[in-house]
């Protein structure tokens, strides 16, 4: 008989996620994914100035900071027909690339690695052998026996203190950990190095947007000005700073991230056959090279792959009200015309109706509503979004760098293309994407320099800045790709104010509950068939869930009456 296990909280993600899974004979036969936190930002936006929306929506997520700001300024620009200057497009692209590199590296080392790397095993590693392995896979200079023995000593002192901090109660020694101690030690070393490195690349956001997390954006362009003969604007010192950071980032990704990925993956090739999930993949694409209106110019192409058929790329139209719809059959919301039909985001509604169990609870009532996430569908089909979807679409469309790198990775792992449709494939796609983005970022930098050299210093188009220039009514959609997948904002502007604002975000696609037809979304589907060696230590579940890089704060919508009381905790 099936046994229900609950994993809540799923840690090492953004936000609050709960997984309930039915296990029979050591395998998952059914699964339920539930977002357990809501804030109601869409309702808060109503009636506000559309030019302010980026700041509100940017606060939807601090992990993939900037992506909501970008989707937001784009939806307003789309509604008001504003074309931004080429320099602003390049600045946005550079910020986009900086985020991808930081976010993917942090995901690999700090959110995902502990699913594969056994920290305690690293204590048993031979520093000399570790050094030999490290030097055989990469020219990265921090690889001497002394370096690894110093780190091991530090780790030993830490463990012997008895205060294991974030490593306490991990699944150490679990049979699903397969790496030799030496590779575990390399993993721990790079966990710490990546933690130190990631704070560097985001300095690009500080230069171009004033701060990170949550840099500043602007409807019509970018707020930072170019003036190569001025101390208070982007001049050669600021530009050289960006270039240096981009070069260092490329070095880190090429010499640390990618070699580690390729060193770890061969021990986990069984995960190329686990965690496949839904078989449809959606990418809105991004990184325009000829203005955002020219979709064919995107470095990350737009399109949909159905049934894993890489020969056909299906077009997507986010303004077609018959294509993308959100359902609430299993979500804690009400629609004014009933729970069955879906709604296109321009007509979206966000009315709370919590019908879950009263906390504290042990299990959700999964036969009715069980999540704060709505359930988006494209023509009634469940879609996976994220690096795997983007790389598959780019691969299918024949992007040279993506094809070359993907084939090289598959060759190294001696795996067919079909291996990509898996937990391991998702994790590999993220690495491949980081490597190509590191290259593209340097191209964008060169283009920015070329523009400035040609005398173009424009950074913002302010022609339609004043609300007096706007039509009485307008609607727009802003698309982008968050590191964890396709992201879109839909806006309706009336009388110079926001009339409706809806977000459909990556983790809503991936982590949503079942739809009206009972179809599972990506998280739930990907868990079916996953082996679980020890239900008390559900390492395998978090491996697959982490491979999606969930981000829950984005994924929820809500409205309710304001409460009135203030509750005092008596602490003495």
């Amino acid at each position, binding site marked *: 008989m099936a046994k229900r296990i609950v994993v809540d909280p799923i840690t090492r993600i953004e936000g609050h996620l709960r997984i309930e899974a039915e296990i029979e004979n050591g395998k998952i036969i059914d699964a339920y994914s539930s977002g357990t936190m809501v804030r109601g930002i869409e309702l808060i936006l109503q009636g506000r100035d559309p030019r302010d929306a980026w700041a509100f929506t940017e606060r939807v997520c*601090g992990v993939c*900071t900037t992506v909501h700001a970008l989707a937001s300024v784009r939806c307003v620009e789309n509604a008001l027909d504003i074309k931004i200057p080429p320099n602003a497009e390049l600045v946005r692209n550079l910020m986009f690339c900086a985020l991808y590199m930081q976010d993917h590296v942090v995901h690999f080392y700090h959110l995902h690695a502990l699913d594969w790397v056994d920290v305690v095993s690293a204590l048993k590693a031979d520093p000399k052998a570790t050094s030999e392995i490290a030097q055989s896979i990469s020219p990265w200079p921090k690889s001497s026996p002394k370096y690894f023995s110093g780190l091991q000593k530090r780790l030993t002192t830490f463990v012997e203190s008895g205060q294991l901090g974030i*490593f306490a109660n991990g699944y150490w020694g679990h049979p699903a950990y397969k790496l030799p101690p030496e590779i575990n030690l390399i993993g721990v070393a790079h966990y710490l190095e990546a933690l130190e490195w990631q704070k560097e690349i985001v300095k690009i*956001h500080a230069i171009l947007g004033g701060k990170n997390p949550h840099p500043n954006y602007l409807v019509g362009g970018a707020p930072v000005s170019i003036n190569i003969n001025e101390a208070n*604007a982007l001049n050669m010192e600021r530009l050289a700073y960006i270039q240096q950071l981009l070069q260092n980032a490329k070095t880190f990704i090429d010499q640390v991230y990618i070699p580690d990925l390729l060193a770890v993956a061969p021990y986990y090739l069984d995960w190329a056959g686990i965690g496949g999930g839904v078989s449809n993949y959606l990418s809105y694409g991004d990184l325009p090279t000829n203005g955002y209106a020219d979709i064919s110019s995107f470095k990350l192409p737009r399109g949909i792959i159905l049934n894993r058929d890489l020969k056909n790329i299906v077009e997507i139209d986010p303004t077609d009200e018959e294509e993308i719809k959100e359902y609430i059959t299993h979500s804690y919301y009400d629609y004014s015309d009933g729970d069955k039909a879906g709604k296109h985001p321009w007509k979206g509604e966000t009315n709370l109706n919590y019908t879950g169990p009263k906390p504290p609870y042990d299990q959700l009532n999964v036969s009715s509503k069980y999540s704060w996430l709505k359930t988006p569908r494209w023509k009634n089909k469940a879609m996976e979004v994220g690096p795997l979807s983007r790389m598959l679409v780019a691969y299918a469309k024949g992007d040279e760098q993506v094809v070359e790198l993907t084939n090289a990775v598959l060759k190294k792992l001696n795996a067919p293309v079909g291996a990509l449709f898996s937990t391991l494939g998702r994790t590999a796609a993220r690495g491949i994407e980081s490597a190509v983005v590191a290259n593209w970022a340097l191209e964008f930098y060169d283009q920015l320099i070329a523009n400035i050299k040609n005398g173009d210093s424009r950074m913002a188009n302010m022609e339609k800045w004043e609300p007096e220039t706007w039509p009485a009514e307008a609607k727009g959609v802003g698309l982008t790709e968050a590191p964890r997948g396709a992201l879109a904002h839909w806006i309706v502007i009336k009388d110079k104010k926001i009339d409706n604002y809806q977000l459909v975000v990556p983790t809503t696609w991936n982590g949503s509950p079942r739809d009206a037809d009972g179809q599972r979304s990506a998280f739930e589907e990907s868990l079916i068939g996953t082996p679980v060696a020890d239900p008390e230590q559900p390492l395998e579940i978090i491996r697959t869930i982490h491979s999606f890089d969930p981000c829950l704060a984005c994924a929820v919508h809500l409205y309710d009456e304001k409460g009135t009381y203030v*509750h005092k905790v008596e602490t003495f």
Partner: protein
Amino acid sequence: MTEHSPTMWEEIKGQGYSRRDFLKFCAWTAAFLGLESSGIGKVVHAMETKTRLPVIWLHGQECTCCSESFIRTSHPIVGDIILDHISLDYTETLMAPSGHQAEKSLHDTMKKYKGEYILCVEGSIPLGDDGVYCCIGGKTMLQVFEEAASGAKAIIAWGNCATYGCVQSAKPNPTDATTVQKLVSGKPIINVPGCPPIAEVMAGTILHVLTFGRIPELDGQGRPKAFYSRRVHDTCYRRPNYDAGLFVETFDDENAKKGYCLYKVGCRGPVTYNACAINKWNNGVSYPIQSGHGCLGCSENDFWAHGPFYKHLASFPGFGIETTADDIGIALGAATAVGITAHAVSTNIKKRKEINKEVEISRIKNIEKEGGEKNG
């Protein structure tokens, strides 16, 4: 990477004593404490390993920007903080275990270090509908928070969410998002606002507690004076432009390219207390104004209610150089005791006429447009 902070043994060794001397010292200490000879080993171990400050970090309604900011700290770097200075026993963002094992980490620390651990809270706590808007492990955030707060030595409220409620508490506050300080009485609370707070300000707050053995001196709103005692406007490098009446009129205009003051395109620096212009962001690289955008006021209470962000402030509450013409005499009187600000006031008086004209026009506009919006 820097070395971890020295243990008692390392310190003794550093002073030239031998291991034998150290063990004798431990035996003497054990005897002094009345321990059996078997207790010597424990003393040796304790002196070799020194307890790190246990920290529980809860996540409520938030976007994780505070955790992201925290890991950006440059001095010290975050790896050193979590390996050498604190024992970060529970944080959903970084901890290895999930589910029951994660909850075990939380409960172990609450039990073992009752009254000794620091509770950090990122995010607000929703009270609407009995707290169902944020659940962790089947409990409401309120239940988890109550339990963790009761045994904490002190509480750090990270960011604008935990301090003031931030974006989810903006009108109409759909989930009744509530702050730490509204829920707790009888515990020291350190408010570290900002969306997010500056990385080094977060690290600095923790290090202050560890280094000086007490919480930093706080202002009337519970914020460390070390980081929140100065207005961005008063510490801004573009301030001379304000005093000279040189303003950006619209983004990317000629004045923007010269780095003039952003006051007229909505900068909230004059009403915002934070260290942005002093410590700057991401290890001193820049801050919003330096990169061409006005301050949003993200470390202030209810800053979301003070939009639209690009409409400039009509007047500043409290004492300030931008007090309206009628008040400026009073302000000057008060300012003589404040030194540096008084100077700023007097330099600005020369430009007062032009500025006031602008200010008055926009104030009337604001009143016309906003109506009763601020009362929400």
